[in-house]
């Protein structure tokens, strides 16, 4: 009889990059070499319906969150034998051991007028001990967020890393046929629930990005008259333009402290990178050359910027100081590299790679080493990190089909479409909500 521990899952997580290194030459075929990573078994976890109003719904949201992470395998409730669980009483562990549940989550919902309270417990079934006992309270209509917070608490307790379930995703919702698409700014919960649309579709919206420390986004609007970059505070719904520029402006992204936006400005056909201080509204030009310089993305400490340039003759990834100093190429593999995005942990830079008529999402270390391809298809594009740096969202277009939002974990093992029924592109993840 083995007991699982936080260490078990952590060591499993740590083992994945090493497994991926086994076949670096086969990087493009990584979707097929999943067998190399098959030694990581998702943790069997039992999440019976919580007691009380909407207890089944809440357990269902938690179960779906943990399952999508790929690190957990929620067990079929039909196999459960103990049906009178009580948060005040220890479960009868033998029954849960019998179905090989390593962890058990039980909870109780209490609704008192405008107040919803959820108590839950997380148990180590084989060690027969409680790992977590928490209580969340909110309004009844906020029950999904409570479920997401419980999911985050379980994830963090069992993996040692912050969760990413109580978050939202901003994206571009697409409707209509190719060539006549309507592209609206949209936002939804990370599990696809509660989608809402923030623009009316009268202009093309592109590349929304979250601030990493507030509910603020920046995005680009494209009209025949030109383009604009906007800042939109989702709490106050206050929207403001970054300003009027001669030429096109695009590719905005916040600095980690939210105080600056780096972006591209095009003049006379030449595109360079600028940065604007949002308080003083003073911009500085960071690149000065006749090549395309775009897609700036700050390192988490704000000291450096990864960007995309074709100064070598084809689009490649570069890193420079946040003041534009010492630009240095980091991508040297075969193919065209674009859309560098620094991970929130600083460990990786995610990118889109185009080679042989296929597009891939990949990651590499900021020094350009340890390149790993996570996905490959006719058209994968635009990776965006979960706040804990474990999962990436991107958009995938099928040959002849519409564009859908997908996610992949940083090992490339867990690849799946986002639970959003419509077409979408340009996803970006919020920080954890408060």
């Amino acid at each position, binding site marked *: 009889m083995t007991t699982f521990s936080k260490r078990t899952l952590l060591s499993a997580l740590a083992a994945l990059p090493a497994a991926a290194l086994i076949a670096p030459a086969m990087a493009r075929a990584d979707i097929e070499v999943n067998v190399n990573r098959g030694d990581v078994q998702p943790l069997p976890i039992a999440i019976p319906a919580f007691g009380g109003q909407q207890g089944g719904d809440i357990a269902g949201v938690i179960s779906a969150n943990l399952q999508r992470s790929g690190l957990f395998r929620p067990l079929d409730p039909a196999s459960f034998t103990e049906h009178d669980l009580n948060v005040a009483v220890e479960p009868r562990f033998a029954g849960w051991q019998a179905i090989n549940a390593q962890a058990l989550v039980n909870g109780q919902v209490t609704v008192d007028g405008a107040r919803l309270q959820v108590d839950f417990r997380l148990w180590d079934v084989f060690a027969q001990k409680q790992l977590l006992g928490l209580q969340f309270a909110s309004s009844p209509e906020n029950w999904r967020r409570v479920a997401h917070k419980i999911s985050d608490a379980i994830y963090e307790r069992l993996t040692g890393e912050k969760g990413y379930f109580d978050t939202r995703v901003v994206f571009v919702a697409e409707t209509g046929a190719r060539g006549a698409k309507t592209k609206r700014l949209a936002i939804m919960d990370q599990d696809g629930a509660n989608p809402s649309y923030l623009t009316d579709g009268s202009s093309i919206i*592109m*590349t929304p990005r979250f601030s990493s420390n507030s509910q603020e986004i920046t995005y680009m609007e494209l009209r025949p008259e030109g383009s604009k970059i906007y800042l939109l505070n989702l709490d106050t719904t206050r929207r403001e333009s970054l300003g009027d520029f001669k030429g096109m402006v695009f590719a905005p992204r916040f600095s980690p402290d939210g105080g600056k936006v780096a972006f591209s400005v095009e003049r006379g056909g030449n595109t360079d990178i600028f940065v604007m201080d949002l308080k003083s509204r003073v911009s500085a030009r960071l690149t000065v050359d006749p090549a395309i310089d775009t897609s700036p993305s700050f390192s988490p400490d704000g000291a450096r910027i990864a960007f995309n340039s074709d100064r070598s003759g084809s689009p490649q990834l570069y890193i420079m100081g946040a003041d534009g100093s010492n630009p240095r190429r980091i991508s040297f593999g075969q193919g065209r590299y674009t859309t560098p995005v620094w991970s929130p942990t600083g460990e990786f830079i995610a990118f889109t790679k185009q080679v*042989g008529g296929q597009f891939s999402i990949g990651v590499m270390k900021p020094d350009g080493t340890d390149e790993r391809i996570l996905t490959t298809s006719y058209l994968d594009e*635009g990776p965006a990190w979960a706040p804990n740096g474990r999962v990436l969202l991107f958009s995938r277009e099928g040959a*002849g089909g519409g564009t859908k939002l997908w996610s992949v974990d940083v090992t490339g093992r867990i690849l799946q479409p986002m639970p959003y029924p419509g077409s979408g592109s340009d996803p970006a993840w919020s920080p954890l909500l408060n």
Partner: protein
Amino acid sequence: MINPRNTGSALRLTLIAATALSLAACAHAPKPSYPTAAPPAPERAPEPPRAPYSPPPPEPVTQNALPGSERDFTINVGDRIYFDFDSYSVRADAGPILDAQSAWLKRYPAVQVRIEGNCDERGTEEYNLALGARRANAVREYLVAHGVAATRITTVSYGKEKPIDPGTGDVADSHNRNGHTAIVSGARMQ
């Protein structure tokens, strides 16, 4: 119906012949030195011929465009040129169309245009916005070098947001890499 090729070729040829003398004296704008890669080898099976790209029926003679109208420009001059993969060099086959655009714009000096740079989908969004801007600017520079006042021209890049061919594959891509000269104002009403 989408028509990536220019119609009314007989009329256009006449125009080109009429303007050839004056243009012969113009120094050709130097081609950008950006290295152009050949389109990637298609990995998909060749596409069967598709109906939308069969040659369009000839324009009925009763629908001749009024000279100086937007329709005149689109049909008799040609409002779109095409580019190679990841290139913004004006191709040899695009020169005559831009020559004709220059001549037409000089004949109708009230017309204001917007050059729209477009890309195929075989690139990512932000890079393609920059590439489309290069294409729009290449067309603008050509027209200015051939005597069209720069103040009459604005540019915009649509990146890969405005494909004229909704298909996927090499044929659609070749249509979607283009510079479109859109008349904003000043043309005669049809």
